[in-house]
């Protein structure tokens, strides 16, 4: 037993030395945990932000100008004025997401109580902006008109007042969310590719065969790969959460980072097992590359980190229950944003460990066979 642990330790150290020798790979890992996270968190926001608006103002009255000027950053880009004829083009090309048409004589008709119509054309192919943006425009115009006619803002006339509190992220700042999700994606992609490719490389270079004539078991070889590559990724994840998300991005973390990193370590085991399993399926590096893409892409996109799980069809939700990343995303959100403790997330821990165990058993079953497959 002691010998087994010492073997796993030794082989893992070897693995770290190999990784250290590949400076290009190291550079890519560093980028994945720093620059990639920062640029994606800062640059992309799913809330209404900088939405491009164009206005066809056929009235050119003080009132129409007043309405248009009410559409301000950060939600909207400063509106552009265009001609009516250009409307189709800008929407077709996706240049503007909203085109507002204010009819001629709008101010006069409004004053005369003739109920003029403002038309808001929305590019409904931009799912994330169109609905939220439309309701913003409607609310902004309604209160501007109210203010224009009564010269006061009065929200108290409603018989029921609604006081909304947004918890965990009061201003619904997008990058609070994006930073952590991007970290999870980097962890996922790196672990699967690193561990799987390391396995195939040893197989192609014949060193794996060499290990198999020594008093080592496939389990020891696998565990060595998992702990060493996992350690590198775990350090990367810690740097990403503490240095980038909390440090550079200034996101307040409400829960325990240590608890999150424990979950991360568990997840690494699970993802690494998937990586090795994929490597035992592929006969060559090109096949492994394709398999990786075919696995990593749906894992990333359907984890619940890009779009909410509730929105997915039931069947997809059920399939994704078999993927450890679903639980990892859930526990990360729970711990880091909502400050959840172990008593809340233990089930996710358990699920990740169980799926990891399943894949490592599958990989183990195919281990020897896959070594002979490449040799023929």
């Amino acid at each position, binding site marked *: 037993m002691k010998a087994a642990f010492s073997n796993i330790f030794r082989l893992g150290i070897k693995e770290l030395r190999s990784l250290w020798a590949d400076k290009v790979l190291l550079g890519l890992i560093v980028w994945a945990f720093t620059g990639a996270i920062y640029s994606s968190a800062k640059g992309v926001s799913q809330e209404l932000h900088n939405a491009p608006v164009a206005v066809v103002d056929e009235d050119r009255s003080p009132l129409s100008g007043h309405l248009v000027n009410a559409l301000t950053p950060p939600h909207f880009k400063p509106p552009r004025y265009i001609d009516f004829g250009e409307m189709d083009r800008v929407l077709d090309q996706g240049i503007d997401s909203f085109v507002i048409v204010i009819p001629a004589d709008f101010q006069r008709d409004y004053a005369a109580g003739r109920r003029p119509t403002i038309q808001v054309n929305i*590019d409904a192919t931009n799912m994330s*902006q169109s609905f939220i943006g439309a309701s913003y425009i409607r609310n902004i115009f309604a209160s501007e008109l109210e203010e224009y006619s009564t010269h006061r803002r009065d929200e108290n006339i409603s018989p029921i007042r609604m006081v*909304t509190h947004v918890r965990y992220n009061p201003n619904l700042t997008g990058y609070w969310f994006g930073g952590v999700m991007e970290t999870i994606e980097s962890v996922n992609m790196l672990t699967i590719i690193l561990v799987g490719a390391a396995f195939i490389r040893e197989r192609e270079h014949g060193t794996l065969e060499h290990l198999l004539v020594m008093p*080592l078991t496939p389990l020891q070889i696998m565990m060595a790969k998992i702990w060493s590559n996992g350690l590198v990724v775990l350090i990367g994840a810690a740097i990403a959460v503490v240095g980038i998300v909390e440090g550079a991005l200034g996101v307040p973390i409400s829960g325990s980072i240590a608890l999150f990193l424990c979950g991360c370590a568990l997840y690494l085991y699970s993802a690494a097992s998937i990586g090795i399993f994929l490597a035992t399926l592929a006969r060559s590096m*090109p096949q492994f590359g394709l398999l990786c893409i075919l696995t990593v892409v749906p894992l990333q996109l359907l984890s619940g980190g890009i779009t909410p799980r509730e*929105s997915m069809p039931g069947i997809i939700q059920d399939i994704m229950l078999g993927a450890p990343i679903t639980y990892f995303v859930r526990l990360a959100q729970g711990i880091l944003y909502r400050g959840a403790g172990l008593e809340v997330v233990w089930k996710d821990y358990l699920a990740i460990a169980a799926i990891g165990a399943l894949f490592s058993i599958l990989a183990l079953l195919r281990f020897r066979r896959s070594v002979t497959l490449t040799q023929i």
Partner: protein
Amino acid sequence: MPPIARVDSVSLRYGDVKALEDVFVEIPAEIMVGLIGPDGAGKSSLLALISGARRLQAGRIEVFGVDMKGATHRAQAQPRIAYMPQGLGRNLYPSLSAAENVDSFGKLFGLRAAERKTRIDELLAATGLADFRDRPAAKLSGGMKQKLGLCCALIHDPDLLILDEPTTGVDPLSRLQFWALIDTLRARRPGMSVVVATAYMEEAERFDWLVAMDAGRIVGTGRPEKLKGKSANLEEAFINLLPEAKRKGHRTLVIPPGPKDGTGWAIEAEGLTMRFGEFTAVDHVDLSIRAGEIFGFLGSNGCGKTTTMKMLTGLLQPTEGRARLFGREVDAMNPESRRQVGYMSQSFSLYGELTVFQNLDLHARLFNLPRDRIKGRVSALMARFGLEACADLSASALPLGMRQRLSLAVAVVHEPRLLILDEPTSGVDPVARDSFWQQLATLSREQRVTIFISTHFMNEAERCDRISLMHAGKVLASDTPAALRAAQGANSLEEAFISYLKKGGADRLPQAAMPAAPRAAGKSASSFSISRLLGIAYRESLELRRDPVRLSFALIGSVLLMFVLGYGISMDVEHLRFAVLDRDHSPESRAYVRHIAGSRYFVERRPITDAKSLEVRMSAGELAIAIEIPPGFGRDLRIGRHPEIGVWIDGALPYRGEMALGYIRGINSQYVGDMIIERKGNIPPPVEISLRYRYNQDFRSIYAMVPAVIPLLLVFIPSILMALGVVREKELGSIVNLYVTPVTRLEFLLGKQLPYVAVSMMGYVALVLQAVFAFGVPVKGSLAALTFGTLLYVMATTGLGLLISTFTRTQTAAIFGTAIATMLPAVQFSGLTTPVSSLDGAAYWAGQFFPASHYLVLSRGVFTKALDFSDLTAQFAALAAFIPVLTALSVSLLRKQET
């Protein structure tokens, strides 16, 4: 006659290592010239420089009077040169058949189809490969691979044939056949010059003129008789040419006699059989090897020696039969049984990135040597195998002979009782081989280690106590070398061996004479040739077709992903879980809750009991929205006191939070509006704001997402397919064909790209059919415009993969780099969920400079906005601009010579 090649003060360094130092030599034309010398002498480097495969660093080389430095000059000489690099079949394409390999080389030299066909038939017949023309190169034996390599080299009828150790690792019979073939060729084409590097001194004796090299310098040139001088043979003469310091360590090897009998059996194998599918690699082999014996294993390439050895180590499970080591059954599953065996595989299989010391130390620890003994053991081994000087060098930096010594040191680190060595001296020079055998002798005679060794060198076989001859999976004979010689009445073991093989049915000396070849046409090296480009494309597509797994992964995989992603990525926010903390329990409060629960966006959960449980249930992520209705809500509402409702929203997912906020406000104002109408009658608002959702009136994700998933899939899959295109050739060695043939970089890259563009377009067709028929998302605009745009797009995305492939060195880095370079920009910066125009800073520019963002507009535009060619000129222009830029970058990063 002028020399065929003139090498003038040429030096070459690899980093700090000097490979060639101020070499000057004039190689005579129209004869057979041999290069001899120990490992690391610089033979291969010199040949690579002459052929133009490696970049010249210092000095001057002229071939056919042409300066090999400039690319344009080189292009004049290269069509007249053929170069066969070191390694069995290293420049062949393993999945292509013999005939296809030769054909693809013909295309590289611009030969016409009819011409190619006659040449291929002639060459394959002359080399005895005609029966194997449809067999993949990977499945040919080593000797056949070398003959095939020769066919490929000769297809364009070169004036200078450069062969780098063509017979290393080839069995004696095949070697004999190979040289017979060369002789026939030269008889037919007396004008052809041949330059050969070899490790076999007995081969070198047959050459017309020799160049002896050592440590990057030339130590002697001339006819073999001249070099031999007074020495008995060339091997001895060569050793005498070496500097004093190197000669000192060498002495004639004498191995004391081995044990006679009665010491027990180390290996006993009975009826050992291994089948791979239909093919029987090892057919009922019996072996019995005495403890302490040196037992040699000889046989033609691919006869099953390696497979037999692997079965004995437990790496392979025999299909039939049994093997015992020291009386115990071989058990692959029992690691403990491996402690008594040391194994050295045919190819170098230590960790190249670790140092000599680290490799030894690692293996000592993995064999669980006691901690206090490891240090002593490792330093003793380093002293014994002469590795002390290079203890801190990485293993990959060692010359071949040193590496083999390190491998042997590693194999004996745990003091095994049995060593299984699979061609340990292949490619190792005579001096290094002798010192290797010295070590073996010591191990065997002094430490009583049993040695089971396979080799192609007859003088090594002579040193064994007993040998077995194997052919086509069967053992033909086993006895002492002397007895085997006597049994065949042969003078040498080599003769005996060949005679056994011929009896075993291995006699396939080529019978067909080599017809006089017509001077091949198409020799002028034009700067750009469509036919060469198509030749590369044809070869690449053949290789792709031979890997149906990859092809089906690519096609079925993308269809499968489309299903999952098309349905799965949904921006519709529905089924938001909410619960109510109702402190009022009045009819009004219940009506209000019913109203919210009636919305299709919300799903009601069991009521919240108190503030504490609201806290807990939200932090567990169970609730997206919590609503608190204060006491007295109903009463306040009735008397018009504006009661206040508290709403808590989970903001952990900002997008979902934003949508939830919008929904709940909308529902509230609707409820309030209804109340006002009920009380006061209908008062129309002063301004009508009419919202017109265009292109997607139902506001369903699928119409927005399916056209957006297509761009994702058409960047991920084509780029990863392409990304290994060049780097794999770099790792496997066939890239050398780019270096030494007239193919230009542009032809090479575009030719490689073409098949992948075609595969990607097939994928596109499948995806569109799926979108229309499976998802019911119609193509409203011009299908022709979409197809044209897609063609531009996949040319750009494969171009991206190609670019990554040209500058990475390993396949791992290429896969990794492609994943990083495509995943983030495609998912985040291309407008999949957030339009590019709303991105900030670097993300915005990343989106602009990534083809997916432009194609996404195009795809969505044609699918949902009914756009036509004229609406999409900006997108076409942007996509088209990527193609020349990416190609130019790839061309500039790809080397036409090894550096």
